[in-house]
């Protein structure tokens, strides 16, 4: 609890420019892509921070900006063909270093060593023409000046560590020869080969079936304990969140609508969108028919985000606040409890009432 309030406090007073005491801190991050069809505001003013050894889960529907955020931290947006066009602003502090303004090559050297990433679909995320070992070795030798032999031993040891049977044989296998779960493990091995302090996992379990999912999550948790690294896990699966998260950040339309500890967000969620998410989370102890409260409508266009509260077009309670404040004024994040923040025009009373009377019983 103290932990939470502390981070909450830290986030309460934004101190742009100077390094925060948190291990990873993102301040007012904006990532915009100019396209033929207009300026896509994938991330539009996002702030959060993660301590070592902690796990932050970013949830939201597809297109809400979760993945973009992760790539932004890794500094992967600025690379490649479209790199020139990306517009990034705000601050990303990693262990006292600011990355947005940093020289790309400096960021490159951090990439894979201090911060590593696990991608959603390991099959397409690994190069089909090179063996697993080959790719891990490469990842290792970028940052460690060692012989191929040594690197290979390291690779095998990592494969072993992530629980791949007879690693010294599998090390020469190609990605397509691995099963989904094994592939994801290999992926993790590759990410952790340099003991990164920050591990970003973008939907690491989506492509896998339940049992494997659980194993992978356990694996990530164990490794986190072992290396004491900070983990940012991106998912739209609240099940996963409940399983692994310390803190939760709910994103909608490129912004944060609610943030807090797992307990806060799951026990007393403050944002109608969060309610929607919770409502749409299946539970085996209920009949399908009655349990789902779907959130109607479609995700907001990131080119012209709805005025006022981006969620108002789909919000069943948009008319409760007086006037058309929900349509005109964009709600700011407000602390609604120790380290629990929410961006909503509804008065605390209304929220508690709606939650306790309408939503909770249905869950």
């Amino acid at each position, binding site marked *: 609890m103290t932990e939470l309030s502390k981070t909450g406090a830290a986030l309460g007073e934004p101190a742009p420019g100077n390094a925060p005491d948190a291990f990873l801190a993102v301040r007012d991050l904006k990532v915009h892509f100019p396209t033929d069809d207009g300026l896509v505001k994938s991330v539009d003013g996002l702030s959060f921070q993660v301590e070592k050894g902690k796990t932050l889960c970013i949830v939201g529907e597809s297109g809400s900006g979760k993945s973009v955020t992760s*790539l932004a931290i*890794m500094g*992967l947006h600025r*690379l*490649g*063909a479209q790199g020139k066009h990306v517009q990034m602003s705000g601050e990303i502090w990693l262990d006292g270093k600011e990355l947005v303004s940093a020289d790309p090559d400096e960021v*490159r*050297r*951090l*990439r*894979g*060593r201090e911060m*590593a*990433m696990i*991608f959603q*679909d390991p099959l*397409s*995320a*690994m*190069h*089909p*023409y090179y063996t697993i070992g080959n790719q891990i070795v*490469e*990842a290792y030798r*970028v*940052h460690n000046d060692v012989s191929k032999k040594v690197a290979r031993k390291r690779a095998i040891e990592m494969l072993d560590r992530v629980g791949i049977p007879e690693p010294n044989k599998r090390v020469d296998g*190609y990605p*397509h020869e691995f099963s989904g779960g094994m592939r994801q493990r290999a992926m993790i091995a*590759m990410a952790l080969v340099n003991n990164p302090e920050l591990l970003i996992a973008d939907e690491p379990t989506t492509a896998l079936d339940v049992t494997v999912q659980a194993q992978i999550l356990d694996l990530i948790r164990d490794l986190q304990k072992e290396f004491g690294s900070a983990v940012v896990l991106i998912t739209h699966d609240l099940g996963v969140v409940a399983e692994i998260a310390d803190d939760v950040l709910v994103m909608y339309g490129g912004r944060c609508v609610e943030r807090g500890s797992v307990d806060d967000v799951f026990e007393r969620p403050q944002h109608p969108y969060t309610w929607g998410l919770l409502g749409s989370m299946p539970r085996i102890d209920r009949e399908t028919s009655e349990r789902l409260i779907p959130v109607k409508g479609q995700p907001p266009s990131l080119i012209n985000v709805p005025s006022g509260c981006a969620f108002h077009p789909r919000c069943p309670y948009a008319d409760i606040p007086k006037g058309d404040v929900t349509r005109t004024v964009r709600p700011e994040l407000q602390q609604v409890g120790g380290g629990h923040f929410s961006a909503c025009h509804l008065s605390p009373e209304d929220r508690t009432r709606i939650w306790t009377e309408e939503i909770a019983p249905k869950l």
Partner: protein
Amino acid sequence: MISYILRRTFAAVILLLVVTAVTFAIFFLLPRMAGQTADQLAQQYIGKSPTKADIAAVKQNLGLDEPLYAQYWHFIKGIVAGATYDLGPTTAHCDAPCFGYSFKNHVAVWPQLTSRLPVTISLAAGAAVMWLVSGVVIGVISALKPRSFFDRAFMGVALAGVSLPMFFTGNLALLLFTYQWPIFGRTYVPFTENPAQWANTLFPAWCSLALLYSAIYARLTRSGMLETMNEDFIRTARAKGLRERRVVARHGLRAALTPIITVFGMDLGLLLGGAVITETVFSLPGIGQYAVQGITDNDLPPILGVTLLAAFFVVIANLLVDLLYAAADPRVRLS
């Protein structure tokens, strides 16, 4: 891998048989489509005012009155075991592989082909090197800076290159470089005789061909490269902290170029099968020109021979490409 090779080779052989059969059938049926009878066909091989007996004799020598399957059988047998034709006092021997016998010029087709092949190979090989290098380089550069000035400029040129008819650029090249400013030679010289001359005479032809193909290849490489650089594994490579140069070279190119092998193989195969227009325009005595000659003499065996050889090249190219591909892309080996 071995079993894969065997499977593909077997398939190739079958394909080759089918192609020969169809080709043969077409050439057997064609004249008849045009309303020719065996008699008329035979008559072409005799001077004027032939007697019935003469025609009958020729028809029999050439086996023109046999049914399709019989002629095809003889043909295949000829390729494997060689053939002999009764020509009155002597019998013409056409040693295996007998690709037919031109009764117009009284020579076996195969030696003609083999003697002309070097020319076609010289042409194709030289041009291929040119276009592969230039095409791929240009393609990669443009792909790395898409919609940059460089990219637009080169793609513009490339598109123009694709749109220029060979027989137009070829003649322009001739007009400029062998007539206006006679820099290059006119008659083909074998490499073995004089490499310098050889290159000198072939150069205009190479350029004209290369212009066309490198344009195509630049476009291929570019789109392939663009696609690959959007792949997840490229993102992964970057996430590892690799230098961009390495990402492009080791991860990008490798994946982008593999499919180009296929196209290249096919093109080369087709070209070897007779760069008919180029050889005509630059009057190179290659097999393509041989086919055209056969057409002007309406002498079918050479045409048939060239067509089969060409088909053979294509099929072989196909096979090699598949094997290369398998070597390059581990995923293929399974299927």
